[in-house]
């Protein structure tokens, strides 16, 4: 079975690019059989990104009011993800809904880990803030460590 790492975000919205940045840091550096995906679209695409995988790491920016750069590690197997990872609206579903959709259809990888990186500034065209940049390095290292621990 295979593993995927999916970075979610918008490259032009400041700290919203955190997930994409982690994907870029990891791309080309991981063992064979681990594929890295950047997801700039809507999260239902996650279901095809992790198709056939038994392990998935998903990284996204959060806006929960915590300190910018705060990293949280959540296991989707433990139950629904918190509200700040929901984006369902008239127009799209959020990561939390994509996870629940996958769970309902039996398409959730056995081990699905979501890393949330709290963003501070989501302005159009803004660069990643320093705190968030540091957090992306931390999350990339954590994912590498998790992959090596499992062999």
């Amino acid at each position, binding site marked *: 079975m295979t593993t995927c790492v999916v970075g979610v975000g918008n490259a032009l919205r400041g700290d919203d690019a955190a997930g994409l940045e982690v994907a870029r840091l990891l791309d080309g550096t991981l063992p064979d059989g681990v594929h890295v995906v950047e997801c700039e679209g809507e999260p239902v695409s996650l279901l095809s990104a992790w198709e056939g995988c038994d392990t998935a790491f998903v990284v996204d920016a959060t806006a929960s009011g915590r300190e910018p750069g705060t990293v949280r590690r959540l296991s989707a197997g433990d139950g629904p993800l918190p*509200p700040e990872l929901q984006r369902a609206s008239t127009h799209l579903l959020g990561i939390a809904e994509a996870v629940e959709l996958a769970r309902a259809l039996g398409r959730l990888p056995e081990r699905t880990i979501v890393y949330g990186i709290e963003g501070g500034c*989501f302005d159009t065209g803004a660069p990643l803030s320093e705190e968030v940049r540091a957090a992306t390095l931390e999350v990339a290292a954590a994912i590498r460590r998790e992959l090596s621990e499992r062999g």
Partner: protein
Amino acid sequence: MSSTRTIRTDYLARVEGEGGMLVRMRGDEVVDVQLRIYEPPRFFEAFLRGRQFTEAPDITARICGICPVAYQMSSSLAMESLAGVEVDGQLRALRRLLYCGEWIESHTLHVFMLHAPDFLGVPSAVELAKVDPALVETALRLKKIGNEVMRVVGGREVHPINVRVGGWYRTPSRADLERLVPDLEWAREASQQAVRVVAGLDFPELEQDYEFVALDAGGEYPIDRGARFVSSRGLDFPISEFYDHVVEEHVERSNALHARLRERGAYLVGPIARYALHRELLSPNALASAGEVGLEPVVRNPFRSIIVRAVEIVHACDEALRLIAEYEEPPAPSIEVVPRAGWGHGASEAPRGALYHRYRLDDDGTILDAKIVPPTSQNLKMIEEDLDAFVRGHTALDEEELRLRCEQSIRNYDPCISCATHFLTLDVEQE
């Protein structure tokens, strides 16, 4: 004693600002209907100033995670029209094919995952997956096929990186495209079946006297481009005259501009406008699907837009198959585009309606000014009018039902108000 009812749906911005829906009633009288919306394109307009004209497709593609191709096409067309060149032949056919992929993907997401739950009495696609997993699996496969078309032609599923002003960075081989055929044939059948399924839903009553506006693409169903705008009440003007006919107004409650036709008022863009104005240009299979379920030639009940979207998926599958069958690898992936000073205009039919771009460049191709008019800001005024009319006709509904129907009314337009928003809480107030 009269009582005042307030029905409110709050969105909290993922990024900044707030938006939502407010319906205020006193007894059976509708006092106020407001959409309060945060909309990102305005911020992108400022961001584009000072950039090179070649950057516009990549930058504007980030406005929407669901219809990046629409933004890439309208911006490229604007730059090419200013330079006096036209991307035609197979280069243009590939653009239309890419756009078909986006229509399949976007319409599928909306029809099955966002709109169908309203009609089926389930709160979301997640619940729908529990009661009708086969339907959701069909939707996932359809959507994936749309994404696959985008990946093969555009180089990536979302935010295709292969698109450039003047054409492409590289063009696919015939074999690349032919591999898509079996899936597209399956998708055509699945979407024909989808038309039957959605036509059998129960539709709330509402008939509106719309002025429909869509691009005219000269003898073909408008998708990737169009030289003129036409309306169901006789307007017919070149896209460069957009602002002679459309006024955009700041509305205090929203940082999205509301568009209206000068001296005429609200108008509607999107699937039911394209269908009303260009029905006879649909593919034979799409027309047959519409005929089979007895779809009226002009749809005035906005809730029935879900059927038209499904018919347009059939059309997009047919069109994709036709374009692939006729494809010949072009000799070069792009044509030269030499910038010059002036104003450029471009428009295409995003899944949710006409998307107009206007740029002013200086003679070295630097963007001096950008205007982006997305379909949703053109529809906002009409959405409010629909809500107003719907609530007036259904004051007897209890609050929960009325609130759900109001949300469903907004979803009739598949509005792109929320690329940047979380849907969080909802308050219903009664005084």
